[in-house]
């Protein structure tokens, strides 16, 4: 919901109602007409396509990971280092999501891994249909890893299931260590948290233990990896985990 903040609307455009009760505050008189029962999830269409993607991945033993983070936390650098390290042992492919440009796809392409770029235009997240269309344009091998690099955004991608095996949230130490509390939906939705740029820890005011504590308060099941995609420090644990997923 980041496309528009909605601040220019009149106050009476929003109604507040308790379950089973009437409107809160001013009296509300609903418009006349025939009532249609619907009772459908707003995200049902996306969920259906995501389930189809998941079945496809499962049938071919493709482990799809949905990489989510703020812009600039090092998703693409982490992928470059990961692909170069695992090349020859694991088959890998990448779906790159950005609003504009081929820049990230070009970087992945240079590693030799098959990649397709999805440009979402004004869209702030990938959805299951975009991934569905992208995956059929990639030559995905059986028993392989598929990295889906989502649009850099810690809010909306949390809501959209792509059919992935797990969401991996990446946070870098140049961000605030309170990010898990500020953007809890993403940390709640993720199974794995990669803390990147740990080579910069001596230079920044980032408390690693506090960040992990905050993240655990939101999601007690989160698994952590502390890495530097630039120097390679801490990468072995992350790489081992990836290989264990296949």
């Amino acid at each position, binding site marked *: 919901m980041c496309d528009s903040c909605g601040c220019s609307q009149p106050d009476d455009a929003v109604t507040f109602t308790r379950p089973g009760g009437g409107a809160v505050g001013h009296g509300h008189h609903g418009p006349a007409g025939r009532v249609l029962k619907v009772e*459908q999830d707003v995200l049902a269409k996306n969920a259906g396509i995501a389930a189809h993607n998941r079945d496809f991945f499962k049938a071919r033993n493709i482990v799809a990971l949905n990489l989510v983070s703020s812009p600039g936390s090092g998703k693409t650098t982490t992928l470059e280092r990961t692909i170069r390290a695992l090349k020859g042992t694991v088959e890998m492919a990448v779906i790159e999501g950005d609003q504009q440009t081929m820049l990230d796809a070009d970087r992945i392409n240079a590693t030799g891994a098959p990649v397709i770029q999805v440009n979402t235009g004004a869209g702030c997240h990938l959805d299951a249909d975009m991934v569905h269309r992208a995956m059929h344009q990639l030559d995905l091998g059986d028993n392989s890893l598929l990295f889906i690099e989502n649009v850099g955004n810690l809010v909306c991608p949390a809501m959209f299931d792509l059919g992935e095996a797990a969401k991996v949230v990446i946070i870098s130490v140049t961000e605030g260590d309170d990010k898990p509390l500020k953007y809890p939906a993403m940390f709640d939705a993720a199974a794995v948290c990669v803390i990147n740029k740990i080579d910069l820890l001596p230079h920044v005011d980032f408390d690693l233990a506090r960040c992990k504590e905050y993240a655990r308060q*939101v999601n007690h099941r989160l698994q952590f990896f502390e890495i530097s995609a630039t120097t390679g420090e801490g990468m072995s644990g992350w790489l081992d985990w990836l290989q264990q997923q296949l």
Partner: protein
Amino acid sequence: MSLAMGIVDLVTGQAKEAAAQKINLVELEVGRLAGVMVEALTFCFEAAARDTPAQGAQLEIVEVEGRARCLACETVFAADSLVMQCPKCGSYATDIVQGKELRVLSLIVDE
């Protein structure tokens, strides 16, 4: 915005199936833990509904409170954010049991 467009797609499809010409009201259930900003959604809905049978429809939000269960002591408690600490034993090892809803409940339509 894509959520709002999803709602408009859903409700205009339902209205068409019921041979209704115009949607006057959309009743939407939103959980407090669904990660949806009601104000932004309402604003986007108005924009997304333009030039559809849902244009001008009132969006009525039915809020659902968040509830979580403590895995340590089984206490079920009200949770108004995703940082959910058990009020009884203090544990953060909790699971959401209610509050992630995002559903269209009903419509009021004209023939």
